[in-house]
């Protein structure tokens, strides 16, 4: 697991500037070491970002979406009493219970994985042989970068995964990814294996932790299936 981001998008929440601070204040008190930034304060464009550096987690709240970013593994975030379960989804619960909250729109789940790292068997040529026809593979020695993308309908939305060689910082920069976990910097500085990107988006009328957990399980199962296929 390299990076993960969850976005809950809702109808424009007109009372966001006046309501959100009461919801977030206990969180700031709890994490005295957290950093927070407020921009466009007291406007509909207000944006609040709270960074929990020690936990490799950031949340961003705006009048139209709530973003949860974390470098922790999906299985850890899905566990009971994880930071997602105990606190962060409590924020959405409180926000959605406000009378002026007009409803959810969709949920966007994004994850980046590094597969086959530190195993020289899993190099570019091996992946080419898996996803390209032999004739193409033989004449593609000058190929700088490549990826295979699969996109399918999913829960009235879509699910997409792509796999290609992991090029380290250039791949992360291309996606505007800034690693939160310093332990993963080595991974980016000395890349190996493959980069797997998973994205799913679908409309929602409600949101709770069980839905997030189910989505994490789905993504993890797809990663396992794909990796089994690549290795076979």
């Amino acid at each position: 697991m390299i990076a993960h981001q969850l976005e809950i998008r809702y109808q424009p929440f007109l009372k966001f500037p006046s309501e959100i601070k009461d919801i977030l204040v206990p969180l700031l008190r709890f994490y005295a070491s957290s950093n927070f930034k407020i921009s466009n304060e007291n406007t509909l464009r207000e944006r609040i970002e709270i960074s929990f550096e020690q936990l490799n987690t950031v949340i961003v709240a705006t009048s139209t979406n709530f973003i949860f970013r974390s470098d922790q593994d999906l299985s850890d975030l899905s566990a009971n009493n994880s930071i997602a379960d105990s606190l962060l989804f409590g924020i959405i619960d409180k926000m959605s219970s406000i009378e002026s909250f007009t409803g959810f729109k969709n949920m966007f789940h994004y994850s980046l994985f590094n597969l086959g790292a530190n195993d020289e068997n899993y190099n570019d040529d091996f992946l080419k042989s898996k996803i390209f026809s032999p004739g193409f593979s033989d004449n593609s020695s000058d190929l700088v970068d490549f990826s295979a993308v699969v996109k399918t309908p999913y829960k009235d939305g879509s699910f997409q995964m792509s796999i290609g060689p992991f090029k380290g910082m250039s791949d992360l920069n291309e996606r505007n990814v800034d690693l939160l976990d310093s332990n993963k910097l080595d991974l980016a500085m000395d890349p190996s294996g493959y980069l797997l990107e998973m994205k799913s988006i679908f409309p929602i009328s409600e949101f709770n932790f069980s839905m997030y957990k189910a989505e994490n399980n789905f993504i993890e199962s797809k990663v396992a299936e794909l990796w089994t296929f690549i290795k076979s």
Partner: protein
Amino acid sequence: MDVYKELSSHHELQAEKLLESKDPNSSGSINSFFDSSSDDPNQAQSISDSNVHNAYPSEGLFQVGDYNYSIPFRTIISKRFSESWTTSKLIKCQVKSITDQIVYCTCIVDRHNNIFETRGFPKLMFSQFKRLKVGKLVIVEIKVKPGASRIDIKDGVGLIDEKEFQSHADWESLRNAGLDKPFQG
């Protein structure tokens, strides 16, 4: 596995762009979401409406602080010196009883299945609370990383709803009520 057959046959070369573009006008860029928008409320509406089918992050991932497209040297330095934990758990607890040495707490181990456990902690870990009494709501934070673990006891006021412990209290009130004895007859 059909989808993977599709993967094999449907190989799609994307050497130039993998997914998100760095175009500042694209919906995947942080610049487009708020910073580059005008104050026109109609435009704000259109921005949010575009999210309906927007399969891209509303903001660039992991833009902590002011660093947008790379990890500058000083960010790396600050991260290196900041203690970082791999996983964390936050367990909501209510103080149940207090002895000279130990504070016993009712802890919500699994709130989805209403599983509670009583755990004891050294009283010293609660000494930051000036008026510790039975019923106080606290959060036990357990952080783990390779080779180390840490437990913090933090004030749960504002983060814990006392009603979450109510179902447990209801069951506790039935203890020794004789309801668990078989019918005689």
